[in-house]
């Protein structure tokens, strides 16, 4: 398979006063070109750290990183952030949960957007301004010219995220990292933004890593899924396959806990009790064991290896749902 991004055995830890915090514990992810990979897991499972490490964006003397990251044929895993930066102009881009962090609150949208085009693509000012308006049109902002004259604070959260997406796609990236791009938005706007991302992906032939804690989002907008738990890949498969035959008890629990419109009213919601294990002090055994409804003795003693079924469906469980394939 032709991968735009290939992450192999990525480990990321942070030195903390309480010891080494193991945020990512040996993760493999392959993103085929022009496809969409969902990264799903609850808060603290290592999604953001994994993406930032892959992009070379984790800095600081307390960061311990190892493993290989190949982007578009180049090994970038060992490069430091300054060297990885060149790839942002040409092939990678990213958007985050809070669009405000990516925008300067005291400058007009037009000058920010145009400036980034001048810097990244070497355009002249006049062309950059015209291109900025064009980009806002591409992300379906109804009145691009008026929006260029506004400050970020004058836009709604959804419009701000559109502006950030416009900036991100300016250099026609081959890969877009989207870290919870709709978590801060309401459901109607979320639906619009996800649809926009899917359309842009198709039109620009762009691959995407879509980070989310919501399996509903994954189901509708990704081709492949990686489920992270306590810094480990616990399940990985094409999206349709994963939903058709879920193997991992954690993924099943995550799915059941989604509030659904078709669930009976007046009752209690299915939920996952407890929480993630302490990342500075992982207990032996399967990290999901304390919360797993199928736990057995063996689970508390050994970490289950990642089993890869002949059809490529990978899962990390001794007693997978429906048995081993």
């Amino acid at each position, binding site marked *: 398979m032709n991968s735009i991004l290939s992450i192999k055995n990525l480990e990321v830890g942070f030195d903390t006063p309480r010891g080494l915090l193991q945020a990512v514990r040996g993760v493999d992810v392959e993103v085929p070109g022009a496809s969409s990979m969902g990264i799903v897991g609850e808060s603290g499972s290592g999604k953001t750290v994994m993406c930032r490490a892959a992009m070379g964006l984790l800095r600081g003397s307390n960061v311990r990183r190892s493993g290989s990251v190949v982007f578009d044929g180049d090994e970038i895993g060992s490069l430091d952030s300054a060297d990885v930066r060149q790839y942002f102009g040409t092939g990678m881009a990213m958007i985050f949960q809070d669009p405000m962090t990516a925008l300067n609150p005291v400058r007009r949208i037009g000058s920010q957007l145009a400036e980034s085009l001048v810097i990244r693509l070497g355009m002249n000012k006049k062309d950059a301004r015209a291109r900025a308006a064009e980009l806002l049109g591409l992300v379906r902002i109804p009145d691009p010219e008026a929006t260029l004259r506004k400050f970020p604070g004058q836009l709604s959260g959804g419009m701000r995220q559109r502006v950030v997406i416009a900036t991100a796609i300016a250099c026609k990236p081959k890969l877009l990292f989207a870290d919870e791009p709709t978590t801060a938005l309401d459901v109607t706007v979320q639906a619009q933004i996800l649809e926009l991302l899917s359309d842009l992906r198709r039109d620009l032939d762009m691959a995407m890593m879509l980070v989310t804690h919501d399996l*509903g989002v994954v189901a509708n907008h990704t081709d492949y899924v990686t489920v992270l738990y306590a810094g480990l890949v616990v399940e990985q498969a094409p999206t349709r396959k994963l939903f058709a035959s879920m193997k991992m008890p954690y993924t099943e629990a995550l799915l059941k806990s989604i509030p659904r419109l078709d669930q009976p009213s*007046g009752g209690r919601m299915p939920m996952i*009790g407890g929480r993630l294990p302490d990342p500075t002090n992982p207990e032996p055994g399967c990290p999901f064991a304390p919360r797993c409804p199928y736990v057995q003795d063996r689970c508390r003693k050994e970490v289950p290896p990642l089993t890869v079924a002949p059809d490529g469906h990978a899962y990390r469980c001794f007693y997978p749902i429906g048995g081993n394939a």
Partner: protein
Amino acid sequence: MAGSGKAHMRPSADTILSVEDLTVEFKAAGGSSVKAVSGISFDLVRGETLAVVGESGCGKSTLGKAILRLIPTSGGSVRFDDRDLLAMPENELRQMRPAMQMIFQDPVSSLDPRFSVARLVEEPLAIWERGTPEERSKRVDELLEAVGLDAQIVRERKPYEFSGGQCQRISIARSLALEPLLLICDEPVSALDVSIQAQILNLLQDMKERYGLTLVFISHDLAVVKAVSTRIMVMYLGKVCEVAGPDTLYTSPRHHYTHALVGSVPLPDPSAPRARAAIQGEPPSPVDPPSGCRFRTRCPAATDKCAAEEPQLAEVAPGHFVACHHPR
């Protein structure tokens, strides 16, 4: 004038809250004003959970705060436990405060980071001089255990040592300290992970049963309120669109906006056909709302009548009320 009607009101001996023609206006830039809440009426029967649902900016939080008189109102009335809250002098209102509590969306910033968990939960009791220090301390332990925290472990910790979900548990414990009759929850799970949302929703359900609460539950997400509510009120740009029970609203939404909201919830099933985003564009500016039906600029079924006349709430089936000239 022009409210959205009162057909859905159910005056009875069990009514705990009755809101009529409530209007809240804010001054906007350039001397204009925004009617964030524009003539809203509804009532609450003891023990029920009313969900208030609608897009960002439609006035949900403003409505919640106005009911508790946390912000000034510009018209209408609010009767709580059969007393007129808006007309009441300050000192009398103060006496009512313990009975009406509110919790907010951002659990972390709504708790003072300098105080220990025990102090945060005890504070309302101390302010109202309820019990001796020993009795209060015992009550704090009870409340912390009730919301699923181990009192001995968490008592002396500070809010920043906790996750968002745990902070929301602490907020809930604090809001229950004075044994309120009414609890208004403003997006209590929107800032939380899906997996933690279910825990907090179940906790609120437990607390409601245990302490006999009446709840108002504000959310932008219909799916979140589906399981916990007994009645849902859908709002758009400061007005009421539709009121119905949760199952009715899901299976047969009659207002075009409610229908779009139902369609916005992502279904966790990749083989289900993916509909286009159910609603396009942004809500119009509340400074200059559309005439007639406020939803008409985004409504697929809008006619001239929708621009000319404001629709009033009417009962389309028992317990199901819609403000629309051409219901689906």
